[in-house]
């Protein structure tokens, strides 16, 4: 994987003044000790802008050939510079340095680290710290791992994946932004979320319509009977979501039930449902 060059060039092209660019090139070539790395990583915060990056097409192609989901709009210049620093570490000992930095990082640093780990040649070595990162209660840290990050889909085992998705739903995160959400669906997760929905309903709380996306494909007659009375019909997103779940199933009684409801449903994709729900913040305002 050769990402070091395009990413480093991209950083330098995004630093507007020559003095700062020279400083950055200097620290990249002088990463001797852990301490150099920690201090350089911290100083990026003070010296480099947090503005959005622009990226030349050939660099973009080079990065996308390794990380197909890469979207430069999710990166700021300082985060990209921190990524470049991480790529300049010797990969034989980068685990120890990055792990130490994770354990002393502020939130913005944690975000940069978790977003950058998938770009490392030995990304797999970081499985345990990344799974630990999911245990955070800081929303932004959680988001940096779970949302728009290719790492979990590639490296997480089923139980870590399920914990991440369940936690995302629990924390009211926009889970349609999880990469591989449909591909990594599984029956165990479907059952966990079925239980979760019932627990919410017992407490007179709503569930996110995004939840039904993960039951799609695992709906059984018994499961449908268990939830049908509680399916929420008060918002476009909820109706669109359970309708889609039923249409994607082969349960004829469920389809019949849906027809009899005579609801006017909008034809949204799962991503559209997630997006609509997230932007209107329905869960928060109704709870």
């Amino acid at each position, binding site marked *: 994987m050769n990402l070091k060059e395009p990413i480093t060039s991209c950083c330098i092209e995004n630093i507007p003044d020559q003095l700062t660019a020279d400083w950055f090139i200097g620290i990249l070539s002088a990463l001797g000790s852990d301490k150099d790395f920690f201090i350089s990583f911290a100083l990026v915060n003070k010296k480099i802008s947090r503005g959005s990056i622009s990226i030349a097409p050939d660099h973009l192609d080079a990065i996308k050939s390794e990380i197909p989901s890469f979207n430069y709009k999710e990166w700021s210049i300082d985060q990209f510079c921190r990524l470049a620093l991480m790529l300049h570490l010797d990969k034989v000992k980068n685990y120890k340095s990055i792990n130490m930095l994770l354990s002393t*990082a502020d939130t913005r640093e944690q975000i940069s680290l978790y977003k950058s780990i998938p770009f490392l040649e030995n990304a797999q070595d970081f499985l345990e710290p990344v799974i630990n990162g999911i245990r955070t*209660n*800081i929303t932004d840290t959680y988001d940096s791992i779970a*949302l728009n990050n290719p790492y979990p889909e590639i490296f997480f085992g089923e139980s870590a994946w399920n914990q991440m998705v369940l936690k995302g739903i629990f924390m009211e995160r926009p889970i349609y932004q999880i990469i591989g959400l449909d591909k990594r669906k599984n029956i165990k997760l479907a059952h966990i979320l079925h239980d979760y929905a019932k627990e919410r309903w017992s407490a007179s*709380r709503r569930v996110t319509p995004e939840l039904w996306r993960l039951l799609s494909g695992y709906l059984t007659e018994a499961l449908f009977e268990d939830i049908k009375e509680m399916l929420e019909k008060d918002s476009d997103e909820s109706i669109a979501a359970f309708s889609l779940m039923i249409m994607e199933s082969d349960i004829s009684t469920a389809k019949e039930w849906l027809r009899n409801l005579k609801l006017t449903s909008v034809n949204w994709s799962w991503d559209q449902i997630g997006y609509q729900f997230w932007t209107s913040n329905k869960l928060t305002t109704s709870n």
Partner: protein
Amino acid sequence: MNFIDPHIHMTSRTTDDYEAMSKAGIVAIIEPAFWLGQPRTEVGSFKDYFSSIVGWESFRASQFGIKHYCTIGLNSKEANNVGLSEEVMELLPLFALKDNVVAIGEIGYDDQTAAEDKFFRAQIVLAKELNLPILVHTPHRDKKSGTLRSMDVLEEHGINPGMVIIDHNNEETVESVLNRGYWTAFTIYPKTKMGSERMVDIVKKYGPNRIIVDSSADWGVSDPLSVPKTAKLMLEKGISPEVVEKVCYYNALEAYEQSGNMKESDWLDGVKFDQSVLYGGNSVLRGQSPKTSDNADIIEN
């Protein structure tokens, strides 16, 4: 009126406090690294404590719409454990450059021992290297000589007094600290430090320049609303709103802004966390004040 409490130890406080502070108009706070009421015995305890004040506590505060900063340092009480202190000194550069760190502190003297002096000096050097302001804790006992000695040592190191906040002043120390050009902070803390009525008299006597009011609320019997309460008393006693705003907001901002990490724009449009910028400006759970029921006996679902 908006307030800054530039000295408060939130890791010891509850969400009830955060709610009350937000309601009283506190928009930004600074949490100086201090001791926890009992001495730590392992360097890992310091590491996790520093981590929590640069990360978790800021997140907690943001949920109540309050912008949280901190200072990083080895406090004078624990500096007396020399072996441990050497290890803590190794940690400080790792934390001192973090996003929400606005000073090295609180450092200075407690019993004025040789060990305290050694680590006070070492941290002055660090602050100078990193170009950060310094927050000085003045001792409870033998305060006056401890305060004068702190200023002597700072000046010996060529530190500009404008970069230093001397805290926990009283009627005995105020004049020399003001005269030597330092930011002069007062802690409104029941019984051991200043009462709010004495604070009113000090502002009446010395005016608002370079005077800062804080609570230092921590794990002891203390009041996280000291700053807004003192402001209210000052107004009642006829001090002008401009003066009150200076000592309860603008002076702290001006002193700590010098770190490069604290700006009024951090909170003026509501406190946000980074990811909200990246993911379309949504603000679920961010900066919302938790709803409160009319019936105090009902816990909301």
